[in-house]
């Protein structure tokens, strides 16, 4: 950082109306006219981050060096401090510079922090729009979905290319999951939405997709009779439901009313009218890991049962096993390194297009519960 950290919030306090001027003073002093000097202010996008507690503020601040290394950008961090009983907005600016590269160039990014109380939320859209760098994509990262809860302004929505959520990996009730699904579907009408929880599933999706990369396995895909998805979560596992929604949407399955009011067992019909039983369960072992422990798919082809299992093994590896009654099992291994939040965020910032696969998976979750509309129950 090239500015002193003399406040609890990183950066120097400036008046809202002076943010741009102060930045331009900083850059003039450090980079001259911005050409052929070692320090270069670089921006490829605008990133708005909304948070509402101080701990989260510090955690988020720690991600900034890595995020700005991969995507030099202007970050506008909004801290809605519930302890502040004010609608006043206090602003701070600072600059993050990377260590000099081999060619001596040092890339720097800008950080603006806006702090306010709950009462200040309504003012934010009118403050944010003028602060965005023109003509560069705008991403909004809302680790606690604060944005979706609070910013209803259409004008503001229109200006955001992509909203990055972090839907809780684990939530307390099916009701919340259902709400989350409805929420994503609604928001996806105006913004492109992505979810870091979904990104965490990538290795699992890869493992399952790989089973069916060869044409001769297509018949197995069309004749799936049973799926079971196991997770480590103590409550409702968003990962497990997203996995289920993804498979069901890709394979065009329709949910039908299921008899199980505990929500462990769901029934679908496939495109050819076949029935598929889907089970979502907690793994027998406890592990401090919110993701999945196993996905097992059974296909019934000409009275033969073939089982495709992907199992979490040690060292971030997913072990896959194909068992056919008539031959020896085939094993394979897929690396499933769990990226940290900074990596996941960078990964999301690389995409601008709509992730329709994710939205369709969420829609399927919504359909599942809509079909099973009876009173929702708490589980685990």
């Amino acid at each position, binding site marked *: 950082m090239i500015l002193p950290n003399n406040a609890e919030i990183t950066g120097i306090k400036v008046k809202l109306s002076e943010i741009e001027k102060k930045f331009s003073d900083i850059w003039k002093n450090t980079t001259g006219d911005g050409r052929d000097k070692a320090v270069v202010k*670089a921006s490829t996008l605008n990133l708005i981050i909304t948070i509402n507690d101080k701990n989260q503020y510090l955690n988020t601040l720690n991600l900034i060096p890595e995020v700005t290394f991969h995507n030099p950008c202007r970050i506008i961090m909004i801290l809605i401090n519930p302890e502040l009983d004010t609608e006043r907005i206090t602003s701070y600016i600072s600059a993050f510079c990377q260590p000099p590269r081999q060619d001596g160039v040092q890339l720097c990014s800008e950080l603006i922090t806006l702090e306010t109380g709950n009462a200040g939320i309504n003012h934010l859209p009118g403050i944010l729009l003028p602060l965005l760098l023109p003509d560069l994509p705008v991403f909004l990262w809302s680790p606690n979905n604060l944005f979706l809860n609070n910013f209803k302004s259409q004008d503001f929505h229109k200006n955001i290319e992509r909203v990055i959520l972090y839907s809780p990996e684990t939530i307390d009730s099916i009701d919340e999951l259902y709400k989350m699904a409805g929420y994503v579907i609604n928001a996806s009408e105006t913004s492109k939405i992505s979810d870091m929880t979904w990104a965490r599933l990538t290795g699992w999706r890869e493992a399952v997709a790989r089973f069916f*990369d*060869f044409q001769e396995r297509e018949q197995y*895909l069309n004749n799936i009779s049973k799926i079971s998805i196991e997770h480590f979560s103590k409550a409702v596992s968003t990962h497990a439901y997203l996995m289920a929604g993804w*498979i069901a949407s*890709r394979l065009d399955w329709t949910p039908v009313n299921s008899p199980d009011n505990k929500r462990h067992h769901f029934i679908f019909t496939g495109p050819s009218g076949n029935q598929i039983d889907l089970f979502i369960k907690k793994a027998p072992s406890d592990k401090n890991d919110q993701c999945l422990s196993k996905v097992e798919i059974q296909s019934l082809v000409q009275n033969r049962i073939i089982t495709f299992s992907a199992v979490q093994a040690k060292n971030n590896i997913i072990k896959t096993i194909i068992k056919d009654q008539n031959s020896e099992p085939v094993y*394979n291994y897929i690396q499933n390194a769990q990226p940290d939040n900074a990596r996941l965020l960078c990964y999301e910032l690389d995409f601008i297009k709509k*992730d329709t*696969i994710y939205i369709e998976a969420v829609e399927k979750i919504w359909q599942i519960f809509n079909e099973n509309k009876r009173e929702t129950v708490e589980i685990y």
Partner: protein
Amino acid sequence: MEDKSNENPLRQGMRLIRTPQPCTLIIFGATGDLTRRKLIPSLFSLYNQSLLPQNFNIIAFARRPKTTEEFRRDMADGLKEFSEFQIDKNPGLDRFLSLIHYHRGDFTQIETHEKLKKFLQKLEDKKDGQRNRLHYLATPPSQYDSIIKNLGTAQLARNENGWTRIIIEKPFGRDLQSALELNKITGDVFTEDQIYRIDHYLGKETVQNILVFRFANGIFEPIWNRRYIDHVQITVAENIGVEGRGRFFEETGILRDIVQNHMLQLLSLFAMEPPSAFDANAVRDEKVKVLKAISPLSRQYIKNNVVRGQYAAGSLMAKSLSGYLQEEGIPDNSITETYVAMKLFIDNWRWASVPFYLRAGKRLPKRVTEIAIYFKDAPLQIFGDVTEGEIPANVLTLKIQPDEGISLKFDSKVPGPGGNIRPVNMDFRYGTSFGESPPDAYERLLLDAMIGDSTLFTRSDENEKAWELLTPILHYWQNNKNRVPQYNIGSWGPKEADDLLNKENRAWRRL
């Protein structure tokens, strides 16, 4: 086994860079320079990014006696020198090295290939029994013939339980005749879709970006033709000399080393028509069409439009350097060119009568590769004070190395009461838009070959067409033993190269 992954509904929208299926890479010539400097560091980098498949093995095949342990130690030393990753205390290093197995033998003997096969099967049986194999010929081209034939005889060119592919390093032949022979030898043993001819230029992000730049941006394609473009200059300049590889270079020359592959690749990517899809055959079909459309070079044409040169002793960056003829291993009467410049025309609807000037050379003032597009002047000169022709042309430059980026030169008014006009540059630099540096070309290409994507590899017809175009120049020079024009080290080439453009009222870009 056919890879039908594109049709898998679960693959749709998968954002992950695809990881290859389990496979074994067999490096022929593993004690050589290429393996140590490029292949192993690239593989280590892929390993660190979790991009190598699980159950991956490397068999290092070369002639000198060595144990696997010794070879692994050599590679660890090489990594210290050439890897971008921290080596000391890297917990992944030992795990990576344990994937490597040394296999000793002589390429010319069938027994060593038979032994290789047994060794491979044993390794494969220990994992999942899949026999996906990627042969990498990192040897001098003189060895290709025996390796390929022996792979065929030992039945290592295909198998029931997996795919087999072969990567061949350039040069793919010395002229049209030898290229046809090499294609025949490889074609007798492997099918074209198994063969991956590597030209590492195509693995460079900035080279691939030529296609993105052209076909993803609506504003450039409409002006990418003879109506707006006056001429194009493609430069591949090196400041180094033959660097201890004099004997190799003496047999090769810059036309074979740079123009036949890298430069014609740049030219065809620049000039091709939009492919119907971004897949291996659609892209390569369009590239070949460009080469086919280049007017054949007659003796008379070569005499007037192709210039060669040799660097003469001089000084560069305060270092006195000897000329080409004084380099070790170079005969006094050598006529091998260290510089070439030429003018080409592409006879098609889009490019008719637009000259493409190409130049490549060693010991030029700096290392730079770029394509510069000169646009035609504005139709009418309305600024009274400035006479026609004085306003410099707009130039769009695609910079390939070392400062990857794109820049546009246009004219602007000098501030003040006068009417002066001066050119200014608008620069886009990769380095300031994307913080991280792009992966090494070999990393990308090794991964593509393991995945089975041959878009960035040279197809046999492309290679043959390139030789067909340039072989008349080689013949002309062979029959014309005049002294090769000299140029001073640190200059931009011989006077004859300047004349080539000056006589048409144009000039090379000063870089």
